[in-house]
């Protein structure tokens, strides 16, 4: 690899969305040689064939242990690989573990060159985690709404209320019991299930 050429980066991630977010970020930052591996079968063979300078892997991936094998002296390895660790730089290890990503680099690649890649990786992984959390919140809000609608229907039928009155009853009960409307609605559904 020439000193100025873009290092070849492999992303090992079973999440296609997160890998795409990371890949896009790397390309925007000028790293053009990015390959994504999502299939864990024959992972090592694929990595050896691609011969990357940097390997990024998410920490939820059990195949991370497979990569550790690359540190071992073996006939199969053409270039020694090391984990991106720096005894003096505990903060960056902490940040990458917190973000859920780990980096392996070819021995000899300069630290100044890998640092921006890892930093970008950490910020993109964190951005993905935030997105995921928002998505989960949105999903659970949607779930809540479905439950509330069904509970309203039960109250309207049993107590002869209008939709608005049913909602007001749910809300005031939730406030009195210091619970969420969704929880009160769920207990109505459970109770009506039991009383069927």
């Amino acid at each position: 690899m020439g000193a100025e050429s873009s290092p070849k980066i492999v992303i090992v991630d079973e999440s296609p969305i997160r890998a795409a977010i990371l890949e896009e970020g790397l390309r925007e930052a000028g790293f053009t040689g990015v390959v994504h591996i999502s299939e864990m079968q024959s992972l090592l063979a694929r990595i050896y064939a691609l011969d990357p300078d940097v390997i990024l892997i998410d920490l939820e991936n059990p195949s991370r242990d497979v990569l550790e094998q690359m540190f071992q002296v073996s006939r199969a390895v053409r270039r020694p690989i090391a984990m991106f660790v720096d005894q003096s730089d505990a903060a960056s290890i902490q940040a990458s573990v917190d973000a859920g990503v780990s980096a392996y680099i070819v021995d000899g690649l300069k630290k100044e060159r890998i640092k921006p890649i890892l930093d970008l990786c950490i910020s993109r992984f964190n951005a993905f985690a935030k997105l995921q959390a928002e998505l989960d919140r949105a999903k659970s809000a949607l779930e809540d709404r479905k439950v509330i609608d069904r509970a309203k229907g039960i109250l309207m039928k049993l107590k002869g209320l209008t939709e608005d009155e049913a909602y007001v009853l749910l809300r005031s009960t939730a406030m009195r019991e210091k619970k969420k409307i969704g929880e009160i609605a769920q207990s109505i559904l459970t109770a009506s299930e039991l009383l069927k």
Partner: protein
Amino acid sequence: MTGPLQVGFIPLVDAAALIVAVDKGFAAAEGLDVALVREVSWSNVRDKLNIGLFDAAHLLAPVAIASSLGLGHVKVPIVAPFNLGFNRNSITVSPALHAAIMGEISGDRFDPMATALALARVVAARCKRGAEPLTFGMTFPFSTHNYQLRFWMAAGGVDPDEDVRMVVLPPPYMGDSLASGQIDGFCVGAPWNSIAVDRGVGHILHFVSDILVRAAEKVLAVRQSWSERNQPILAALIRAAFRAAEFIEQPENRAEAARILARPERIGVDAEIIQRTLDGRLKISPDGVMRESGRFRLADRQGAARPDPAQAAWLYAQMARWGQASISPEALKTAMAVFRPDLYDTALGLRGDTERPAPGSIGAFAGAPFDPADVAGYLASFKISRLKP
């Protein structure tokens, strides 16, 4: 301390003492609030323990030693005051390799020397007809699984680095890889051997207790610095794990222990399969042949939970034999100091000299008797090795 103790584990039966200690209330009885965190890779457990996200962890014994020596990763001194697992690994091979070995064997099929010699003949025949080398899966470069496989095959004359391929695979992938022909055999802990047998894709060839009478596989690991700052907490954790191991050891408690371990957030496999391991009675082939081994369990019998520095020395010797570590008296001393029987004794109020197993009781089926005082001499007795100059 703020918040609960964070304790990492990998879903394997040898995390039993930790899981039961928490879920059956032995930890709470010691005044501990413990959050068990299930992990997917040994690398994650090691890193999270090293940087302090975990206070303690279920860890491969050789990783605790490698971390203390700075092999393959950042150097962080680790101490192991409690053995979690002995002899729970097995070597499982595909039906095709099993048939090939049985076709070549002369002698008892449970005799590891007989199977190793048969394997050597199978390997030689494959080489002669230009077939691909056999591939064996194990769970981590610094693992007893790796060393046990290598020890066994090298005794029969098979060079693990030249004559076959050794690959790391996560335990849950072993069965699939065996079924798809990606690997021909593997060494892994329970319950993954039984799962392969139940699926009809593998035969258990050996319990590793056939190969070594005692081999420390998993330990309760903490950072050395943490152990110094948190002595009462560590002692309480050791006691809780000890009580849990005692509980599991009682036959009448095994069904309950198996149910606890089977929960989805713990090991997450069928309780019946887990109980087979706890009982030490395993189905070894898809046609239903059962095999029992008194050596298989050793949860806490014979003081097995008490760390024995001779075991650490043996593991270090394997690292040196296969080129992962250089031989030096300092490194040997560091490795042995990882296993801390003194912390175990203090926590349990034992005098150091009670119920101690005979030192150096590795009991390998081949090679010179192991002497921690002469690792170089011991290693020189092996024909196949990768000693660093």
